[in-house]
């Protein structure tokens, strides 16, 4: 209560036009609040307030076993649930020195890339909506549905898969797995140019996003921005290249890099990533070994040896770090999740100062924030 009073007093003394964007606001994409000070329509400064959906996942993890933790990590960045599962699983496997079967690695990477495309599709929908292009939403969701169908077929669920577990996979994928992905790639190759026709080439869109919210490479590194947002500024931070994991070392792919760092290139980086993900998927599918082994031999109770383990994984939004401190028990002593959106959020003040309120929406859309990932 004391803080609320303070704000009112400040308002009277120096007339600032402060608006609260959120916690319920259509373009914060979740329960996040920006305290925005305006001068006319121009943003003077912005303070992000988070914690509205803080569930204490790190504390909960301290009383859960490793296979149980997997189900919590889905709920971080729910749009890249698969990568989150993979991060914890890889960290546990690293601690136990387990080598998972080759086929599992391929399936994990394939699902990661599918999830990345699905996540970027939803981002594209939401970004179009932020800019007022409401039709984008349905174009994106139409194609995302195809990926979710593949997930449903193989993982059993559409959004929160919990499919990757320490040691391998929950169960084997559907026999139609390879074919349905090939069908999807064929379908999406035809549909992705529609996205460009609808939004990318539009004059209004280009005027709204070009040279807007320019983030330099130094800023990106200093603020710990990762993912496509940072790669649009020229920061080569793709963990798939820096510290390759799963099946990524076996294949050759391109890291999407731009140097401009404006909103348009953050958009472009994601669009290009969708194209590149399809190439990666094809390469992975070609090399994926046949068979039916989906898990390594695991003990029924997983106890990590005493020590500290760190695993970095590239999710759709950037780098997810899992830091496990183990005291030899079946539950972690401390589990820290370095989530990409937490770091990505706080650059907002720097990027938006001096721009219009409509640009604020465009910039926050281009950073692709997922709020449960910030608050954990």
């Amino acid at each position: 209560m004391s803080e609320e009073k303070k704000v009112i007093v400040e308002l009277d003394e120096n007339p600032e036009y402060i608006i609260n964007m959120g916690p319920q606001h259509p373009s914060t994409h979740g329960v996040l609040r920006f305290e925005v000070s305006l001068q006319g329509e121009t943003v003077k400064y912005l303070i992000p307030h988070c914690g509205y959906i803080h569930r204490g996942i790190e504390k909960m993890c301290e009383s859960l076993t490793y296979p149980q933790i997997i189900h919590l990590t889905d709920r971080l960045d729910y749009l890249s649930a698969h990568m989150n599962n993979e991060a914890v699983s890889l960290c546990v496997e690293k601690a136990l020195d387990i080598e998972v079967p080759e086929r599992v690695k391929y399936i994990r990477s394939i699902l990661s890339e599918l999830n990345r495309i699905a996540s970027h599709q939803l981002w594209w929908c939401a970004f179009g909506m932020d800019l007022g292009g409401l039709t984008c939403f349905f174009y994106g969701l139409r194609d995302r549905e195809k990926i979710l169908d593949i997930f449903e077929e193989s993982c059993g669920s559409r959004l929160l898969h919990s499919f990757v577990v320490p040691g391998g996979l929950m169960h084997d994928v559907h026999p139609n797995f390879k074919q349905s992905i090939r069908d999807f790639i064929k379908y999406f190759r035809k549909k992705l140019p529609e996205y460009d026709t609808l939004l990318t080439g539009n004059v209004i869109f280009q005027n709204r996003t070009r040279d807007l919210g320019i983030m330099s490479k130094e800023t990106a590194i200093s603020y710990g921005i990762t993912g496509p947002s940072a790669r649009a500024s020229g920061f080569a931070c793709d963990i798939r290249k820096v510290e390759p994991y799963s099946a990524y070392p076996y294949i050759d792919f391109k890291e999407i890099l731009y140097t401009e760092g404006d909103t348009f290139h953050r958009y472009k980086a994601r669009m290009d990533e969708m194209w590149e993900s399809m190439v990666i998927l094809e390469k992975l599918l070609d090399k994926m070994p046949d068979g039916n082994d989906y898990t390594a031999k695991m003990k029924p109770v997983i106890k990590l040896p005493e020590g500290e383990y760190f695993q970095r994984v590239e999710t759709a939004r950037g780098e997810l770090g899992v830091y496990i401190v183990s005291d030899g028990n079946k539950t972690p002593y401390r589990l820290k999740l370095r989530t990409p959106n937490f770091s990505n959020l706080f650059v907002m003040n720097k990027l938006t100062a001096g721009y219009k309120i409509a640009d604020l929406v465009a910039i926050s859309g281009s950073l692709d924030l997922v709020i449960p990932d910030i608050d954990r």
Partner: protein
Amino acid sequence: MEQEQLKEKIVALLPEAEFMTNKQYLDVIVPANKLHAFVTSLKETNDLKFDYLFCLSGVDWSQYLTVVYHITSSEYGHSIVLKVKTDGRENPEVPSLYDIYATAEFHEREVYDLLGVKFTNHPDLRRIFLEDTWVGYPLRKDYKDEINIIER
């Protein structure tokens, strides 16, 4: 750069540094009062250039707390882990690194919020997730919450 080479460089920069063995990264234990100067030199030394702080976490070790910094170089790709032990747990203090890595400002707020480590010199040390009126630091091992946490 290999871990051995890194070790040599770091000893040259900070003779009192202690090392711990770790399969993945080189762990360095840094005294709290030397941290700021040491990290500045890590970032500014030409062949080290540790410019990207990718993780900052706190761990409660019952007797004391540690703050763990995972730092890497975006140019060379080598990483180290810095650990700072606090004096006891009543009034733990660690210097803030917000002026070296901008991201540290917010990660430090998180550590302060959940573990109660006070970062000296921090420009805006408030709770980040919990309410300002919250009592206690939830990630500490002796934190009790009879309503929300079921003891097993």
